[in-house]
């Protein structure tokens, strides 16, 4: 799940970068996604954690870096979503949106971490060192801040939104943030139980096991949610439905409709793939189809091609009003 989240978020980062560079799309969320990728990279999905942590001194600084990355990423997602949903910039004047608040949050996480008795790299750093008050405070503050940020993002993502792609994207992010918030609260409960030594071992074990699927499931959903806008943008830009329909119609009807030779038909299919205006090509098929019905009524259209043509035809028919309503019609003689 962590690996899936990492690769999805990396793909989202690359696609959003492309849209920003190529088409001048908004650069909001780029920072959040980039830092999120860095945070997930630090979980050892590509390079083992031990090697990364060794480069940082071999005393679990990687844990701090990862947690700061996650916090910063969620902070930036929150800023992006507030920017999208707010009518004006007045929300920026609130303390919780000021850079100072972010710096204070990072400091509140970092200071207790630095106060611990450092131990060698451990893949279970928090569970093994939760008896240390600084580690408990460090992890508790981190999870607390993350839960607050996640709830804040969740709340704004559930506001009414006119745009369908934005609505779907933010709802998926909201679902992810809900899981992150639950995971954070659950982790605080687990760490508290461990630190003050309450609850049965099976209860603690359940809490421990629940964290990863909740937290990384939330990260995965958030990554998917942030990946929806680039997919929609690419879909629109590339006119994928029209392109697919044009390729299909050229492949199935090109020879019959235009009398193409085999090589011209292959070239026609290739041109359909790269057509600048696939809808113009579809229009030609719609016209040609009716021409054939008039002039060559004996020829039949394969069923599936006919259904694609009908769908395209309905679209073009819908764009033209009733002729009688727009044209001065000559009185019958």
């Amino acid at each position, binding site marked *: 799940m962590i690996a899936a989240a990492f690769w999805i978020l990396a793909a989202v980062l690359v696609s959003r970068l492309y*849209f920003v560079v190529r088409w001048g799309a908004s650069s909001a969320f780029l920072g959040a996604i980039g830092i999120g990728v860095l945070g997930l990279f630090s979980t050892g999905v590509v390079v083992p954690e031990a090697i990364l942590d060794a480069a940082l001194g071999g005393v679990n600084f990687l844990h701090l870096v990862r947690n700061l990355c996650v916090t910063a990423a969620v902070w930036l997602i929150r800023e992006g979503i507030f920017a999208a*949903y707010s009518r004006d910039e007045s929300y920026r004047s609130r303390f919780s949106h000021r850079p100072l608040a972010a710096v204070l949050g990072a400091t509140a996480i970092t200071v207790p971490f630095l106060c611990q008795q450092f131990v060698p790299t451990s893949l279970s750093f928090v569970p093994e060192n939760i008896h240390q008050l600084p580690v408990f405070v460090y992890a508790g503050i981190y999870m607390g801040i993350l839960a607050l940020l996640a709830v804040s993002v969740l709340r704004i993502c559930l506001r009414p939104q006119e745009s369908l792609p934005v609505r779907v994207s933010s709802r998926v992010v909201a679902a992810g943030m809900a899981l992150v918030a639950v995971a954070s609260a659950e982790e605080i409960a687990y760490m508290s139980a461990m630190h003050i030594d309450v609850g049965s071992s099976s209860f603690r074990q359940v809490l421990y096991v629940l964290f990863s699927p909740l937290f990384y499931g939330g990260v995965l959903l958030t990554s998917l949610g942030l990946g929806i806008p680039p997919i929609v943008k690419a879909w629109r830009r590339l006119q994928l439905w029209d392109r697919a329909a044009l390729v299909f119609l050229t492949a199935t009807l090109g020879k019959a409709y235009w009398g193409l030779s085999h090589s011209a038909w292959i070239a026609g299919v290739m041109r359909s793939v790269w057509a600048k205006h696939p809808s113009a090509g579809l229009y030609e098929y*719609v016209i040609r189809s009716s021409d054939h019905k008039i002039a060559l009524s004996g020829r039949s259209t394969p069923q599936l091609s006919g259904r694609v043509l009908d769908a395209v035809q309905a679209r073009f028919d819908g764009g*033209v009003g009733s002729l009688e309503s727009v044209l001065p019609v000559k009185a019958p003689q």
Partner: protein
Amino acid sequence: MEQATLTTDVIATLNLPAYPDLSDLVNAVEGKYGKRLVFEEGTVDNLGEGVTGQWIDTPSQGIVRYLRGARAWTAHVVLHELSHILLGHKGKPLDGLIAGSFFSGIGKRNGVSWMCRAVDVPLDEAEAAAENLAFGLARVLHATPVKEATKAERVFGL
């Protein structure tokens, strides 16, 4: 002149609104034509076998006959006939048409000229130019208005 350029140039002279409908286009063509246009549904009997549309130029008005079919297709037939008018094919009734049996009774007669859109004969230069312009006009008619992105859509990168 290259057909694509010709099509672009002719459309540019029409001064159409941003997203015109068929009546906007007819008004613009009437302005160029200098006569009123009337439209009537044709039949195989008065159009001829395999002929889908016809423009009859009379001294007082233009008559466009179209065969009834799917809505977009019928509009395209009308666009083809309007294209003949815009391309100045008036007065050269059989110009470029490859004579088929169904054209035998068509010609310039008593100041009346005819242009047809046939579908089962090869298109010659005049017909090809009219058809090309018809596709260009159709592209203008079917253009989807560009919807301005909302603030949320811009931020989300749409």
